[in-house]
């Protein structure tokens, strides 16, 4: 077996990222779409940590913390919007979220 290099992590990360894209594109349920976005963010994090490990520099890890922050903010606001939307329309299907007002 070849030793694990950052390239391995990059391939893994790319795979996870693509899974996220497929989720965003394929699914209609906006909650699953948000979850797919979380997957993509995590793919990015894997890369950042791999590079941090490769360069033996803590900055990569610091950025992961920021990404997690952003993800948390995104989830809170996104889910708040979903709840508000659901209360009015009783759906979480993204195709029905085409109106700018209701």
């Amino acid at each position, binding site marked *: 077996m070849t030793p*694990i290099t950052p390239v391995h992590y*990059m391939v893994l990360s*790319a795979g996870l990222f693509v899974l996220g894209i497929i989720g965003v594109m394929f699914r209609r349920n906006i909650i699953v779409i948000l979850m*797919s976005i979380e997957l993509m963010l*995590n793919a990015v994090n894997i890369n950042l940590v791999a590079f941090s490990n490769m360069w033996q*520099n803590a900055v990569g890890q610091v950025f992961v913390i920021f990404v*997690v*922050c952003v993800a948390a903010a995104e989830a809170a*606001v996104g889910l*708040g919007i979903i709840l508000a939307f659901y209360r009015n329309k009783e759906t979480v299907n993204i195709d029905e979220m085409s109106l700018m007002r209701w």
Partner: protein
Amino acid sequence: MGQEVAFYTLAALILGFGVLVVTARNTVHSILFLVADFLCIAALYVLQGAPFLAVIQVVVYAGGIVVLYLFVVMLVNLKRPPEAHRDRRRRGRLGVVCALVVLVEMVAITAYKYVSPTAGLPPVTTMGPNNVALVGAALYQDYLVPFELASMLLLVAMVGAIVLARREL
């Protein structure tokens, strides 16, 4: 040897759970797989010598964000499946194409890097296994302003979420 086995196992688990997240019909199952995925990613961080991040990953992602998803799924209980739509494959095809393009591009980049390795550069600093202090120092000294901005972002998000989720919009 141990590291390789661990990496490949975790990689397989991460990708496998990722597939399940995207494909699961039941949203709650989807969330469950997402949690499992995040736990595996946390394990991967441990493997990469970032135990602090691993714990953050579990506490914030698995213990916080995904619980939020779970709560919302339970609040949003649906009469009809949200997937129902006339033209089911309309964007799906686009998605596959997009994903393929991205995948090819990424594989190309990594393959290119692989044949002309730039690795071997000396590490900027040496991080021991106990790098929590290093991360802390970087976070609170070099990146203080972004840190404060991030906290502002979280505050704004919190206020926004509360306003949005209130019953009377």
